[in-house]
């Protein structure tokens, strides 16, 4: 029978209508109940779930439109079909605006009622199938806050799930913006240490002295300006996880210090003699090629092997473009929550997003969408809202190397940002430190012009 699982509530003040409509629907196999007025209808909607509500518009007391409004809040998935003896355009429009599924004028043509019921049942079945499918997909395509359906990322999820509960050091490799810290946080959240602290430190942003003090802390008077005892990140992360970003950038002295802590789990604060023991899981990350750094002698081999117990390489976004629609959905969902409005991208905008090369990876995508959500007038983001240029401003005379293109792109964005490095970094989807190091590498000044010889 058609409607074995479709529960119908008939709401009408006329008994003869309730009986004749209920009887007709029961012969179709629908479980039917009825309510003689708005108040009892709402009571039944508070206590039981209904798939379809056939609701009379004109009733004494609470009228149909009021019941409809309340019903949409109580049971938004239920299809509400309004019934009335006299159809007026105004009431029909009002009912549809309030979320009614359809509108029938009494008495109904039997075929009209049959087709409408079949339609509603089919739609509800589709919606529930979709919801089931979506939650199933979500489960498989997620690792905490990371979404992906690419096979490479799925392998990373599997590895991370296995590695999370262990205490092993994990090394996360990948370009800037691929989500190294997001993965580290996810691993922490999945681990037995999730109740403990998660501390993050970027090793590239600090001088050797400052970094040493940030890592291990210092005693009062250890150096000029050390006016009080300071706890380092290792101590602060006790019982939890310490995420060391840009670990490839640390100096040889600190490489040795770090190696010792990883081996002994013990260290001294700078200027201190007390030996401090900590229980910390270290997750390190870098966008550098550490093997090459080891080969060239700039990174200690023993530290490399100490860090490289479990290595995970996050692929750049351009190598997993199939994830772009999924990521767009994910980030728009977060933005919808933040901005309390509905957000979608148009087909054209999605085409632009899919065509873009994403040098700043997932972070750049997130920033582009955030910008789009702020700039867009409507709920649908168009290509213009994204602020992505299809082609570089200056056309090179011949083929360019990747470095040339990157240099030109960064110079363009710096010029566009009028020297605001933070803004330029946001637009590029990379962090400020990375931008500074790239500016240094390409010899660019704040406004994008040449700084003369690279490295000055």
């Amino acid at each position, binding site marked *: 029978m058609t409607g074995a699982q479709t529960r119908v509530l008939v709401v009408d003040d006329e008994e003869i209508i309730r009986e004749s409509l209920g009887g007709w629907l029961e012969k179709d196999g629908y479980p039917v109940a009825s309510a003689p007025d708005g108040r009892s209808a709402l009571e039944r909607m508070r206590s039981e779930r209904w798939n379809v509500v056939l609701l009379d518009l004109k009733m004494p007391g609470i009228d149909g439109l009021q019941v409809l409004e309340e019903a949409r809040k109580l049971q938004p998935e239920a299809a509400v079909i309004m019934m009335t003896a006299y159809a007026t355009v105004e009431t029909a429009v009002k009912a549809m605006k309030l979320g009614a599924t359809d509108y029938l004028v009494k008495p109904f*043509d039997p075929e009209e009622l049959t087709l409408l019921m079949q339609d509603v049942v089919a739609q509800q079945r589709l919606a529930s199938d979709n919801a089931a499918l979506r939650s199933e997909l979500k489960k498989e395509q997620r690792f905490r806050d990371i979404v992906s359906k690419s096979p490479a990322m799925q392998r990373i999820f599997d590895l991370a799930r296995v590695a999370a509960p262990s205490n092993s050091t994990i090394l996360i490799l990948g370009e800037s913006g691929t989500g190294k810290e997001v993965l580290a946080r996810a691993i922490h959240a999945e681990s037995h240490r999730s109740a403990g602290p998660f501390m993050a430190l970027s090793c590239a942003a600090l001088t050797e002295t400052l970094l040493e003090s940030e890592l291990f802390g210092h005693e009062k008077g250890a150096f000029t300006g050390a006016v009080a005892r300071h706890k380092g990140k290792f101590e602060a992360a006790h019982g939890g996880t310490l995420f060391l970003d840009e670990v490839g950038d640390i100096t040889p002295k600190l490489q040795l210090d770090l190696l010792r802590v990883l081996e002994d789990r013990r260290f001294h604060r700078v200027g201190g003699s007390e030996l401090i023991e900590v229980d910390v899981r270290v997750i390190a990350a870098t966008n550098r090629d550490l093997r090459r750094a080891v080969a060239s002698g700039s990174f200690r081999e023993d530290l490399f092997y100490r860090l490289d117990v479990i290595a995970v390489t996050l692929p750049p976004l351009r190598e997993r473009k199939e994830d772009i629609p999924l990521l767009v959905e994910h980030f728009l969902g977060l933005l919808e929550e933040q901005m309390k409005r509905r957000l979608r991208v148009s087909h054209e905008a999605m085409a632009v997003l899919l065509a873009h090369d994403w040098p700043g990876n997932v972070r750049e995508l997130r920033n582009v969408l955030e910008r789009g959500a702020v700039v867009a007038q409507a709920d649908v983001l168009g290509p213009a809202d994204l602020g992505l240029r299809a082609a570089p401003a200056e056309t090179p005379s011949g083929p360019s190397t990747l470095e040339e293109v990157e240099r030109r792109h960064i110079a363009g964005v710096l010029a566009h940002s009028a020297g605001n490095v933070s803004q330029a970094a946001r637009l590029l989807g990379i962090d400020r430190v990375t931008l500074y190091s790239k500016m240094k590498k390409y010899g660019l000044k704040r406004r994008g012009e040449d700084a003369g010889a690279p490295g000055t």
Partner: protein
Amino acid sequence: MEDIRVWWIGERHPVERALDHVRLHLEGAFGARVAVWEGMGRPEEAYDPRRKQWSSGRILSWLVRTAPDGKVLGVTDVDLFIPILTFVFGEAQVGGRAAVVSTARLAEPGLPDERIVLERLAKESVHEVGHVFGLLHCDRPGCVMGRSSSIRDVDRKRGHLCAVCRGRIPRDGREAT
């Protein structure tokens, strides 16, 4: 005593061939004893002057009150309605004892072949009496218990019960409740 009475309660003279056709189909479908019964009286109270139609619900009440014991199918030529719908081809008490069916909407104007109308009448008669035997609508293709919302629906189905619906009817039709 018959299991099912077929009672002409229409306005015009009965078409005996039609009633006989209905009788044969009911016998075939339900394996029951069926008789054409000529009772007196018509359900005048079922007429609704505002809608200029007959209330099928009121006809059913009248049949239960007026017909002798056993199941009864009223056959009429007047236009039937239930309050929420513009018309019905017929109506029945599910698991009860009375059903009614009308030829009013089965014969489209200008339809030349009376046999088509007879087939439709037989199908709708079996359908409504099926409800009296406790059957609900059936989605299996061709089953006569498929819902009848339009003439197309009626013409699409065959005159028989599907195996599943037939299995739900007590074998000799006499013990059905």
